[in-house]
Structures are given as C-alpha cells and as structure tokens.
C-alpha cells in the first residue's frame, strides 16, 4: 500500500503523497469537513430565529 518515496527532498507534503490520490484526498477533506460544522451552526441559528 505504501509507495516508495521518490521525492528528492523529504517533506511533509511529500510524505503525505503516499500513492495515488492520498495527498489530494487529505487536503480536500481538510477543506470540506469544517463546512459540516458551519452547516450545523447555521442550522441552529435559523431554528433560533423562528
């Protein structure tokens, strides 16, 4: 599962890049997941408004 590390210089992002899509899925998740929290907050606000 883990690919051999081929970057010339080791780095955090190079390390996350462990195989097809691993790095990008990680970054996308990190961007999208907090939106659930924003969603919950806004839902609570809309319910309170009523």
């Amino acid at each position, binding site marked *: 599962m883990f690919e051999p590390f081929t970057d010339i210089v080791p780095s955090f992002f*190079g390390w996350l890049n462990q195989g097809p899509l691993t790095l*990008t899925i990680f970054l996308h998740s990190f961007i999208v997941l907090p939106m659930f929290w924003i969603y919950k907050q806004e839902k609570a606000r809309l319910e309170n408004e009523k």
Partner: protein
Amino acid sequence: MASNHLKWESKQLATWYFTFAAIIFGAQLLFGLVAAIQYVMPGFLFEIVDFSIARILHINALVVWMVFAMIGSVYWLLPDETGIETVGIKIGKLLFWVFAAAIVVVVLVYLLVQVGPADETTIWFITEGREYIEAPRWADIGIVVVVLGFIGNLYATGMKGKPTGIVTVLMADMLAFAGIYLAGMFFTDNITVDQFWWWWVIHLWVEATWEVFVGAIAAYGLIKMIGAHRQVVEMWLWIEVAMLFGSGILGMGHHYFWIGTPEYWWEIGALFSALEPLPLVAMFIHVLYDWGKQQGAAQQRGEEASVITNKPAFTWFVLQAFGNFLGAGVWGFFHTLPQVNLYTHGTQFTSAHGHLAFFGAYATILIGMMYVAIQGSNGIKVLKHTKSSIAAAWMITGGVMGMTVSLTIAGYVDVIVTRAQMGATWAGYFDGHSGMWMTQAMDWRLIMGTVTFLGFLFLIKDFLSTGKNAVHTR
C-alpha cells in the same frame, strides 16, 4: 463620451475606461493578426516587428484592455450598488490619465526599442521579458500605485455606502488581484524560482481573482438586465466564490509539474485543477436558469415581451457563460492532468486553450459591460440589437471559435509529432511545424483571426452609432 444622462461622475469615469479599453482591444487584435501572418509567412516584417514583439503587444494589450474594462466596470456599478457617488472620484480621474499615459509609453517602447542589453537598465526601462508581465519595472510600480488608488476608492465607497454582497466580494477580490501583482516584481537568476512566482501572478489572476470578478459582474448584470432577485443572485455568487477559490488557488499546482518544483505538485495540481470547471458549470446554469425563471414569471403575469433590458449586453453575458465553461473549463481540463500535460505542456494546445479561455471568460463579459455603459450614457430603457451588434457577436465568437479549433488541431500535431514522436528537440520541433496539418491549421487560424477582426470593426461601428439609433425604447 460626455453624456447628459449620467448623473454619477463615477459612471462618467467608467466610460473613459471603457473607451480606452476598446482602443487597446483593437491593438490587441491587430498585433495578433501580425503574429498569425508570421506563422504563415515567416518573412513578414522580419527584423522589423518580429514575432516576439508582435506577441508581446498582442498579450500585453490583452491584459491591459481587460484591466481597464474591469476597473471601468467597477466604477460603473459602484453608484448602483452602494447608492452613493464614488469617494475620491477626482483622484480616480487623475489616475486614469496617469495609467493611460504610462500604457502608451510602454507600448511605444515595446514597439520602437524592442530589446536592450543584458543588464538591469533593460529590466527597468524596456522590457522584463516575462510573458504577460513584460512591462518594465518603472511601469510595474506605476501600475501598483494606480491600482492602489482605485482600490482605495472602492474601499472608501464600499464602507461609506451600502456594502452589498457584490461590493463585498469585489472589495476582497480586487485587493487580492492587486496584491498578487507584487509577486511578479523582482529579478532572480534562478529560473525555477522566477517561474514559480510568475505563476502566482498569472494563475491567481486568470484562474482565481478574475474569475471571481466576472462572477460578481455577472451577478450585477443579471440584477440589472433581467431583474433577477438579489438574494438568489448573491447566494450563487457566494457558492461560486467558494468553488472558484477552493479549486483555483491550489489548482495553481498544474503549473508546477515541470518547472523544477517538487513532485507532490502533480497530485495537488491534478485534482484541484480538475475541479476548476465545476464553478464554471455552476455559473453557466446560473445565468440561463435565472433568465428562464424571470421570463417564465413575466409570462405568468401575462407579459409577452422579453425581460431583457439590454439585448446586446445580455447576448455577451450568455456568450460568457458558454465561453467560460468551454474555453476555461473544457479546454483547460483537456490538458490539466500531468500524464497528459507531460506532452501538451508548451505546445499549440496551450495556445488554443488560451484563446478561447481569455475570450470566453473575460472578453465577452467586458464587451457586455461596455454595452451596459452605452445604454446608461444614452438614457435608453431597452437597448436592442442592431445589424452591426448581431454581426459583431457572430463574427467575433465564430472567429475565436475557429481559431481555437485550428490551434487545437495544430496542438495535436505538436503533441504527437514534436513531443511524443520526435522527443521535443530543435529538429523535432521543426518536423512537427513543417507538417501539412500544422501549416494548414495555421492558415485557418489566420483566416479565422481576420474574421474576428472584421467582427471587431462591426462592434466599434455599433458602439459609436447604436446610442443614436431609433430602434431602442427610450
């Protein structure tokens, strides 16, 4: 373009910006034609106005007229959105003349001096030699000062008047737009570092801040021209901002595949930029959906007339919705994955994408805004099409589409022969460029470029005459 119909000075200033933009637009097309002729007849103006010079003028004029038209668009919509006269309008007018004069000097130096010795004086006074931002350093600094003045006006007006969603987005976007330019203002011996920061300017302009800008302009246009509901339009705008910046900022990775930057950019660039077409689909749906919705609502009220109050402008806005998706989205996605880009990077394919994307995403909507200004300056209630406006839309769009298809075919030859088959050497390059498919594609590009230019002449004729035409509802 003095007009008694404009009660806001801000709108008057906008018409200045639009006028200068239209002139530079013409220069862009003219030098594009020179470059296109040189592909077909390499001896044309050889060692007089070489391809490199024609191309510098072609792409710099492109950037300049768009920036002028963008600033004009903001000055135009500010009083409508905020409900007040633009703060600092006197400074704005002064800066217009400074900006226009600087551009004229830069262009004349490009054309008459062309190149300089390999030292810092050339970088400061003649050319920086970096594609799209060749403007010498003195002009860079001038541009930053002028744009900061414009942003000062925008912020002062936005904070004093009513800061609508559209104005809020524009305020944030224009600040980023100007700030990013600073990344292109230094010299380094390391070409990898050079190109790394160069893309900060080019990519974060055209695939992030400019896209958000046209999103905001489209939102304004829909409210003005078909009476779309502000709340709906602004919700779309926020969704577009999230999607455009969410994909576009890290989508920058697709420029970092082969310039000496680390391998992890393959993944970041591939996936984020693959998502870049999504907001363009959203914008496309948004424009057409709102149009249908407003027209349907009008029909239910028993009104048969079109809800569009500015036919030519709306035509260009709809062309933008198509063109942005097709040129930036589809043509961009074609070659954004590293597996493909290894062979398409730096070929005529890029050129095909560049032509349709710049036209589809930006030229269209800015022409639309010019029509909005013509309507306002002449006090017209419903601006209708004329024969010239229809001819212009057909010929310009058809011409650019034709150039794009030609360049795409040329791109295939470049990719397959020059790159894949011949391994990208000097000899391989000319093998690719001597083939029949390549030379014929270049012939067609020139023909289609000529059609585009003729369309531009119709456009200018319409700009100058439509205000007095009797067909419009006043």
